């Protein structure tokens, strides 16, 4: 029995008719050749979120970003003109990595007036121009204008800094499309209390998106996290989303969330009752502008029991809005066909009191308990997919975002390969 209304077609999946309802082939998650193609066709051509603007508070603030999936390291810097720019982190003299601290492979950040290479002290200003060459007279007709840092497309949307390795890519705003427009105005800039997690995961990057883009698993995998009665009830009811939407290549799921605050206090753990917080975040909304009313793309069904929306910005960024007024971003950075780095950032409005601080602590701790459970199934899935004993998997209507994600990956790769073959 459906608890929430589905589209007229009878299911979300059939409503988006290009998806089909057949079982889905997961070769795209285990085939090394497909992975190499994805790096070119997807990661070198789409907009990738690399950090929040708050990491660049001043003129001259910078951070570096290691991006093995596109085989580069980037410097993201705010110039004297307040413009945020991105450069390949490579010195034009003899290719040393320009910005790093003690360990060349570790990311770093700071503030400076110019970048000076550790090797022979060539200097670059904040716009990437080569400004100084040590013993310039020893070179042969060196035109400094020809040796600026290699720049990379960099644009900022609502404080989220994105880069794109494709110089011909459409603008970030166009890329984010309807969702970008519909989310605009959410008070992200107020949410500067940050918890950043990183994990190495032994699976293809898409499998972790799969794990977070459906909540069909929640009553089962996370069963023990609810008190017994609640867990039993959740198992019986199962999971149904309030709403799904696709704006290819992006997609979203909107879910209810009765836990913030719960109707029945006996349904949550004792510490949640005292701190008034849990998986859905602190129950008491922060006192800031912009949460009421919410931007139109959030809670598209206009449902009263709404709890969380998750937007999947293709390829590797998820943005979650929780009803009590905080957000999470997830990112999935492939390092091999069967490995990736997972990053999660939790953003809260800075707490004003000890009580608010502890409520956020509980939300952050709870997040990690869930995430570890989610992460751990992935390696098992990857290993068994790699046996190729089974290749096609029947996905249900609550797994529509997975169907869409794998189709997007396959379509992007095919389009890229067709274009290459034609040229």
């Amino acid at each position, binding site marked *: 029995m459906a608890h929430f209304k589905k589209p007229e077609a009878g299911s979300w999946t059939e409503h988006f008719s290009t998806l089909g309802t057949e079982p889905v082939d997961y070769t795209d998650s285990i085939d090394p050749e497909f992975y190499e193609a994805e790096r070119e066709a997807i990661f070198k051509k789409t907009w990738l979120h690399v950090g929040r603007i708050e990491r660049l508070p001043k003129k001259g603030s910078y951070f570096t970003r290691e991006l093995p999936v596109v085989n580069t390291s980037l410097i993201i810097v705010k110039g004297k003109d307040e413009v945020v720019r991105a450069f390949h982190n490579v010195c034009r003299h003899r290719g040393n990595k320009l910005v790093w601290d003690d360990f060349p492979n570790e990311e770093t950040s700071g503030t400076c007036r110019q970048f000076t290479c550790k090797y022979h002290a060539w200097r670059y200003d904040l716009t990437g121009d080569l400004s100084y060459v040590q013993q310039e007279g020893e070179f042969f007709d060196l035109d400094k204008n020809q040796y600026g840092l290699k720049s990379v497309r960099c644009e900022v949307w609502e404080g989220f800094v994105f880069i794109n390795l494709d110089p011909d890519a459409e603008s970030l705003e166009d890329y984010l499309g309807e969702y970008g427009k519909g989310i605009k105005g959410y008070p992200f800039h107020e949410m500067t209390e940050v918890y950043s997690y990183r994990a190495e995961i032994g699976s293809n990057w898409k499998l972790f998106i799969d794990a977070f883009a459906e909540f069909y698993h929640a009553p089962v995998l996370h069963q023990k996290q609810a008190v017994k009665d609640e867990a039993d009830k959740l198992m019986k009811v199962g999971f149904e989303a309030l709403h799904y939407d696709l704006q290819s290549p992006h997609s979203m799921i909107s879910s209810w969330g009765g836990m913030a605050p719960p109707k029945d206090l006996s349904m949550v753990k004792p510490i949640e009752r005292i701190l008034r917080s849990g998986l859905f975040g602190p129950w008491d909304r922060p006192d800031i502008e912009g949460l009421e009313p919410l931007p139109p793309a959030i809670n598209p069904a206009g449902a009263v029991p709404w709890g969380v929306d998750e937007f999947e910005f293709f390829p590797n960024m998820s943005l979650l809005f929780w009803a009590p007024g905080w957000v999470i971003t997830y990112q999935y950075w492939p390092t091999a066909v069967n490995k990736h780095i997972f990053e999660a950032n939790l953003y809260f409005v800075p707490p004003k009191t*000890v*009580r608010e601080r502890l409520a956020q602590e509980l939300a952050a701790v709870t997040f990690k308990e869930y995430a*570890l459970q989610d992460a751990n199934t992935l390696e098992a899935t990857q290993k068994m997919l790699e046996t190729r004993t089974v290749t096609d998997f029947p996905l249900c209507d609550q797994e529509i975002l997975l169907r869409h994600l794998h189709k997007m990956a396959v379509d992007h790769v095919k389009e890229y390969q067709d274009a290459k073959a034609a040229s």
Partner: protein
Amino acid sequence: MPKLPAEFADLEKFSDWCLPTEAERYAKRLDSTMAQMQELYDATMPRLEDACAFGDKFPLDDLPEDVRSLIHLMQSLVMVSFPVEVWKQPRVPDSGAAWAELYVEPVV
């Protein structure tokens, strides 16, 4: 030298749980037995409400050292709450080799 405010002297024997960072609290959780965590939980849980009320008398960005320690102790209570209330073990069940590092955190 007591670490905690005089009003919370009864919790002084748990002061090795006054740890400022998540990494330290998580490591101590993994190093502890359920009996140790249960003892901490049973002692601190009834004082959590008091600790919030006490801490709220001070500005969060300018806490006296002993109040800061009290908050760190309560953060440890939060850290052990999952093992005590649900897991019945220090580790997240079925989390096997999964590991996540908190590399940016607001420290009280």
